């Protein structure tokens, strides 16, 4: 069973959570000033890294809050979870190596 640490509830089973897509994507302040390409970039284009990715997750069957998490897409190991609104935390090489293990 994969455990995910909700910043509010602590370690919970994966089935309680739902994925909310890539994190740290800000809506452009003035969409009318963007070109179609820039708008499409905001709407559709997402990173698809082999390795660490910052994602939004929601504790759907718990406190119902969104939070952010850094996960390794190869191993599904979570490095860190943090509250919405906080900047993406630095991941140390040791943490990254552990997540890739």
């Amino acid at each position: 069973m994969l455990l995910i640490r909700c910043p509010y509830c602590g370690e919970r089973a994966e089935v309680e959570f739902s994925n909310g897509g890539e994190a740290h994507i800000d809506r452009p302040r003035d969409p009318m000033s963007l070109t179609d390409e820039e708008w499409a970039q905001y709407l559709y284009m997402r990173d698809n890294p082999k390795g660490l990715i910052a994602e939004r997750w929601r504790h759907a069957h718990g406190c119902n809050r969104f939070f952010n998490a850094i996960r390794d897409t190869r191993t599904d190991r979570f490095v860190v979870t943090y509250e919405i609104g906080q900047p993406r935390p630095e991941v140390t090489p040791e943490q990254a190596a552990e997540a890739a293990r």
Partner: protein
Amino acid sequence: MSDVSVSNSLAVSRAGFTATPLKGGRRFALQGRKDTLEGAAKAFGLSEAPGMLASAAAGDCTLLRLAPQELFIITGDAGLPEAVTTYLGTVPNSLVEVSERQIGWTLEGEKLRDTLAALSPLDMRERSFPVGMVTRTLFGKADGMVWRTGMDTFHLEVWRSFGPYMSSMMDAAALDAAW
């Protein structure tokens, strides 16, 4: 909760485990910012709102902190005290009565721990789930709320449509636990 929701067919009774449907009382879901929840707790006569996943009793009402922005309130048949509704009329919040949505049981018996372990992956031993702790979680496919009311008693609530499913899940789990 209405009498329709407490038909005896939802009771579970196995060797070492009983689930008794709850009768009466009303339920409210209150969502708001931190200050709103603190103010509501003061209107209940408490010094502060219960912390995350904790509960607090105020008269015949119980406040359960299910989320940073949410208090689940179980009251007697009279509903919320007037001081609380008066206070909530003055601040932005979302207060919804969900009495008809909820159906609950009191769980007890010496096989309670094993039965709960078959229902949920949560560690419900005393050290990680002390008396008074409450949380929403999944029981099989049913989204429910479990609250430890005493060392040997739990209070479990799910949405009404999950009632028969939850009841048969508990029955099967209790049967497993009795083995």
